[in-house]
């Protein structure tokens, strides 16, 4: 059965994805910050059929803890077939503009921590010559917008890093999946006014599960974000800069 490391496992999207792997009888190593929430996710995944679920508590913003986390996962599961990286914070653009500390902190959580995890993990999978790396990026990384460009910058960094990894690892048969969700109705967006573009976490989870199983490269979820973002990317800068997005 598949052995999967899920980082940021208490996020709604990661949990929904893990549920589907659990139903297949996967062995899961789930990582999060809050031990109480991790326990809840662990119970749910076990009941749903996971052969085994191990939990690991850490603050993912602490980059120097990452190697220990990966070592623990490998020691526990023996090997890895896939990793899903799903942690992140939406961050407040206003606060980031007012404080360089806040900006750097957002970049650390949403970008640097992903790079810090992916560097050793990529080497592991490259050596193993098989496996799947999936990371949740965002449509926000496709073009910088005034309303959330710090978050967008981090996600653009993740997307570009993943492009490079894919280019490198496809040679040895490792698949690299970049997931670009649009708006998702999760605790992360609890305060945002909802509109019809909002997707449910289980829809996104299902798309990620499928994308990982089928070895896809980049998925927009739901699919309609692909044409929307294509359009947004192609608006000339001299017009775009005057828009209030």
């Amino acid at each position, binding site marked *: 059965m598949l052995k999967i490391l899920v980082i940021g496992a208490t996020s709604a999207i990661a949990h929904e994805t893990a549920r589907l792997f659990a139903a297949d009888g996967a062995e899961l190593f789930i990582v999060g910050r809050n031990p109480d*929430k991790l326990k*809840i996710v662990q119970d*749910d995944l076990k009941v749903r059929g996971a052969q085994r679920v191990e939990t690991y508590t850490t603050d993912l913003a602490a980059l120097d803890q990452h190697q220990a986390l990966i070592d623990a996962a490998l020691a526990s599961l023996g090997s890895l077939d896939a990793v899903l990286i799903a942690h992140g914070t939406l961050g407040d653009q206003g606060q980031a503009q007012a404080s360089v500390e806040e900006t750097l902190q957002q970049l650390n959580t949403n970008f640097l921590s992903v790079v810090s995890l992916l560097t050793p993990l990529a080497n592991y999978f490259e050596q193993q010559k098989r496996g799947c790396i999936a990371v949740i990026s965002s449509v926000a990384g496709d073009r910088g917008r005034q309303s959330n460009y710090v978050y967008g910058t981090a996600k653009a960094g993740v997307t570009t890093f993943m492009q490079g990894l894919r280019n490198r690892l496809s040679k040895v048969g490792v698949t690299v999946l970049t997931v670009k969700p649009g708006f998702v109705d999760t605790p992360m967006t609890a305060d945002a006014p909802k509109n019809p573009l909002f997707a449910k976490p289980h829809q996104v989870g299902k798309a990620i599960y499928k994308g990982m199983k089928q070895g896809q490269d980049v998925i927009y979820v739901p699919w309609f974000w692909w044409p929307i973002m294509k359009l947004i990317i192609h608006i000339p800068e001299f017009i775009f800069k005057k828009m209030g997005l």
Partner: protein
Amino acid sequence: MNSATITKRYQSWGRYPKPEHRAVEKLYWRGQDFDFGRLDTTILPFGYGRSYGDSCLNNDGVLLDVTELRQLIAFDAEQGILRCEAGLSFAEILDFIVPRGWFLPATPGTKFVSVGGAIANDVHGKGHHIDGTFGCHITQFELLRSSGERLICSPTENVELFRATIGGLGLTGVILWAEFKLKPVLSPLIDQERIKFRNLDEFFEIAADSKTTEYTVGWIDCLSQGDSFGRGIFTRGNHYDPPLGAEPDVEAKPMVSMPIDLPSGLINTFTVKAFNEVYYHAQLPKMVRAVVPFDPFFYPLDVINNWNRGYGKRGFFQYQCVVPYEDSIEPISEIIRRIGASGQGSPLVVIKTFGDRPSPGMLSFPRPGVTLALDFANRGQITLDLFEELDAVVRANGGAIYPAKDARMSFETFEASFPQWREFEPFIDPKFSSSFWRRIMDKC
């Protein structure tokens, strides 16, 4: 959440009355510390809004949306005991338990209800004559009170609160998770028989003959008079016992939606008569037997998403009463006659005999007798007047009206239905209230 979202998403199934909620809060996980103290108004847990009237609404107050509480907690595959969070829907539970050889111990006519709502309304279904209500199968649940207390309630622990919360309309606190016993089934298919009956006497004869059949329900054409008065179709079924090696073939049917509100007057005497005529005569033989998937058997209306919009913007009422049945069909005949004479009422008239299995719930609705449930387009005062007339018959015969379906009963009717409400009242959480409860008690 902005007010447009609240107005659109947080209504009751009958879409009457139209509430204005001050805010909607969400519980994201069962360990969450929820600060009830900062609320300057009352709160009411809300699931999927499948209660018809105002028992799931809290006009001018706050709703506590529990639909994010959707984790499974434990499953005993030997005993068939499931523990899960209260916002999980019956649909999601069925997806999990049916492939494992289990079924819900009791289920209403829609699977889009939450576990918490099923307890708060002590729901019943086609199996009531044998299995009782959903509340009969609860082994324990956790209740969060506005004081911050988290109480495990079961038949042996916090017993009174356990009894008050089952059928307690969400007023005793918020249920975070529940544990209940499932029913083992040989297959998810139903071996179904549909039998035409010419009148109510025949209905009761068939019902009496079907006491050991797991599921029974009848449909009645309430508009037919004279010789065909009380005619209908009796549906009964057991879980199918498949021949050895046969793979049950249950395919989910695609769901269709009611994309718009239909004009309010579309469901009228003429269309209902036409529907009933066609529906009754569509089945030619006296009895038809078939093996069918459980979905169309239990949840025929669930294939039309938002079917409630068929009644238009004015919304609709559902009227469900129970009257004791002791060898006399007179009370129920009287009710059907009055509905027929009024020219109101829908094609969906459900009749069922309840069994005598008692529920632990203090305010549980089902009781030995016969229950009738049907929709009424909201035609204003004439519809309300008819209900008053029917209520009088129900009261005179020692019956009851179902709060989960109600948006208009009087205090007098409520008191006649649930004289035990005074025993229940002390268990209401001081921060919890609902439109239903205030409407009834204001007239007290």
